[in-house]
């Protein structure tokens, strides 16, 4: 039984700024969920802190809105507890590529079967526009030290994900609903660690990464003959960040899942009961 848009109607009034790129992300998420044949109660959103982190309050799903930078490890434990769940992380560039960068890379290495939607607007918006880890070198804001702007290269989330071992890596754009919806569907149904970096303008703080900036520079990978089965080609595309910004699936592959390497029962871990008679035997091995 498919889910209707009305069923996803958010419980709270949206607090994002008018024109925010997050509206497009929320709309695409709803469309993706409506078009997938997955029971409503099996979705869980796990989000961090920032404007992206508020998305669970604007869509009717199970959700866990947690700390800054930590949604990926929380989502990892949750997925292992119940592998029937479709666990989707919503995180921002500040959340995921700053405090959360270590978790992001290690989760990719583990190929834990979750989808990560990385809202990337190049700023820490909710704290008033400081440069984020994804801000370009020289990005100037009134709220970040030092005066000449961000004195370092941006974190390349796509490249990190590919190198670390993520098995689905894509970039979407909040302004391209059709492609973003499609990429989200692929990520949700992908078996393994799926990352969709989502370009979005922060209309309040970011004067550089605007709708116009993205509209002029983004181009679809698929229509330009990109081979998404090759990690090398994916990485080469990931390093392309000049005047033209590729969007679409960079890489799709397969690798063992984290769950394959843990001692999980056949059913859901949450239903499993340790065999106490067996535990008693193991304890009695310590009898002298």
């Amino acid at each position, binding site marked *: 039984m498919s889910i209707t848009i009305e069923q996803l109607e958010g*419980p*709270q009034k949206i607090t994002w700024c008018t024109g925010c790129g997050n509206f497009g992300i929320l709309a695409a998420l709803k469309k993706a969920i409506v078009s997938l044949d997955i*029971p409503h*109660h*099996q979705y*869980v959103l*796990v989000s961090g802190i920032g404007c992206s982190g*508020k998305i*669970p*309050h604007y869509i*009717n*799903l*199970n*959700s*866990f*809105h*947690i*700390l800054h930078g*930590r949604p990926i*490890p*929380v*989502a*990892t*434990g*949750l*997925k*292992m*507890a*119940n592998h*029937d*769940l479709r666990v989707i992380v919503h995180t921002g560039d500040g959340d995921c590529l700053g405090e959360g960068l*270590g*978790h992001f890379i*290690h989760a990719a290495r583990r190929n834990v079967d979750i989808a990560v939607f990385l809202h990337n607007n190049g700023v820490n918006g909710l704290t008033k526009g400081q440069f984020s880890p994804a801000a370009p070198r020289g990005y100037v804001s009134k709220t970040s030290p030092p005066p000449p702007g961000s004195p370092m290269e941006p974190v390349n989330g796509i490249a990190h994900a590919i190198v670390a071992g993520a098995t689905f890596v894509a970039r979407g754009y909040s302004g391209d609903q059709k492609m973003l919806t499609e990429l989200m569907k692929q990520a949700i149904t992908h078996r393994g660690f799926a990352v969709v970096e989502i370009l979005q303008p922060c209309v309040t703080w970011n004067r550089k990464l605007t709708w116009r900036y993205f509209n002029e520079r983004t181009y679809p990978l698929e229509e330009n003959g990109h081979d998404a089965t090759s990690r090398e080609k994916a990485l080469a595309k990931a390093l392309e960040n000049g005047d033209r910004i590729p969007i679409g699936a960079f890489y799709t592959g397969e690798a063992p899942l*984290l769950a394959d390497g*843990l*001692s*999980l*029962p056949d059913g*859901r*871990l*949450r239903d*499993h*009961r*340790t*065999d*106490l*008679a*067996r*535990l*008693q035997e*193991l*304890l*009695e091995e*310590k*009898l*002298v």
Partner: protein
Amino acid sequence: MTFNIGGMAGQGIDTIGGLLAKVFVKTGFYTFTVKDFESRIRGGYNFTQIRVSDAPVHCPVDDIDLIVALSKDAITGKRDQLVDDGVIIYDDRFDFEPDEECYFPAPLSKTAKEVGGSTRMTNAAALGALLSVIRFPFDLARQVLTDIFTRKGERVVEDNVRVAQALYDYTAERFSGRCRHNLSMLKGGPSTDRLLLTGNEAVAFGAMAANVKWVASYPMSPSTSAFIEVVSHARDLKIATLQPEDEIAALCMSIGASYGGVRSMVTTSGGGFSLMVEALGLAAMTETPVVIYNAQRPGPSTGLPTRTEQSDLLFSAFASQGEFPRIVLAPKDILDAFHTTVRGFNLADQFQVPVIILGDQYLADSAANIAPLDVTSVEIDRGKLARPADGDEYMRYRLTDDGISPRAFPGDEGVFVVSSGNTHLEDGHITEDPKIRNAMVEKFMKKAPAIREALKPPLLTGRADSKMCLVTWGSTWGAVSEAAEKLNKSGLSISHLHFTDLYPLRTGLLNEFFAKAERVVSVEQNATSQFASLVTMETGLRFDHHINKYDGRPMTPHWVMQMVEEVIA
């Protein structure tokens, strides 16, 4: 009777110690083994002390009857603790001139190689020499060794027995010193307690009996062996265990797993717990039960990584920004480590709070034989759970009289489980409404009195109107209770009030003791009397004296008695 096996890391001190403990457990004695080691993989000077008694023993002592030295340092390292008529057996390959009668050189490694075919048999050689000095009947030793090694095959049994016997006979012939123990008439001791466990193993078995299904831990001494114990049974029992990138991830994963409906746990020490503090607050705010086992070691920073201390109590009670209910427990001994861990899981679920179990290196690494445990009779209480019928009406943070809202789990059909580390509404979505904020803070505060009621009162030994009351918590129970007993026998009037359940603090008995006892004295393995501070904070009562130990080494009854006598003087 107390033995000390000393040598370098990597020489098999633990193996000999373990073997010796097993020999005495099998012959019906109570044993207590404590390890003293440096943070290194090879070399240094490490030792194991094995205390053997015909009554249960719960702590190390200062006096040593017999030392086996596997390194040159170990020959003289504990000489000052040797009793009169004590003996130091050492490998004769060391260049050491014995200048006292207590020294007995024996060809340990040489015989191991010649008779057993490998210097790895030095363990059996040392055991043979040691048993010979105390005139332990060899037939009995043979039976016991056969039992111990049977699992490893006939060849191993034969080799070990042969090497042990060679040294036993050698020693019987050559040893001309004096030993105060002569067990030649020994038939067996009174103990039937055959379960030889360390504190960390007891924590691990408690967790497994309580149906822990997710454990994420980053290695950190002295907690690691608790994690390893679970890991070693994970495949068999279907327990998901993961070594994540850091302790932050460890606790976050465990919180995620618990939100998903499984009982989960992290094992760590103070440094790791420091990293977990923000997530501790998340567990509290989202009312997600989780058990944190902190095997304490001396800090701050790296401190003494392989030593013991009780200095994380106030940190555990107050860690994280904000105000919230939590539970802090500290087992008193190895058996209690099992039961306290089981209880910790139940309390976490009943009150939907984080539970911190404070062990320490001393408890974690010491071993004793205890009566068999029945893990199948463990009771599990998952606390308030939502009924499927609650359906559309379900709200994760429904306001209730006792502050506890029924849990449902994501994936349950017909309900949405919405949870947030922000201040939230009953339905879990975020809010900044001052009325709701008040209601949610009060929801938290309502839990504290009920938690206090559910916690165990302190263990009382002696009378409230004694001249002196010693107040302790956690693993120091063994040394202090033995000291109190001895002091009472010597004519003093000492009572002992011991806390396992620390926070929120039950204050009832404290008021009575402070009113009646002439002097109330705290005894703690830390420098600042943290528990005493907690008592004063909660009750306004002030201790008359504080006894503190912070050198990283466990308390002994003798040390406690000396300190008490100083207080009296």
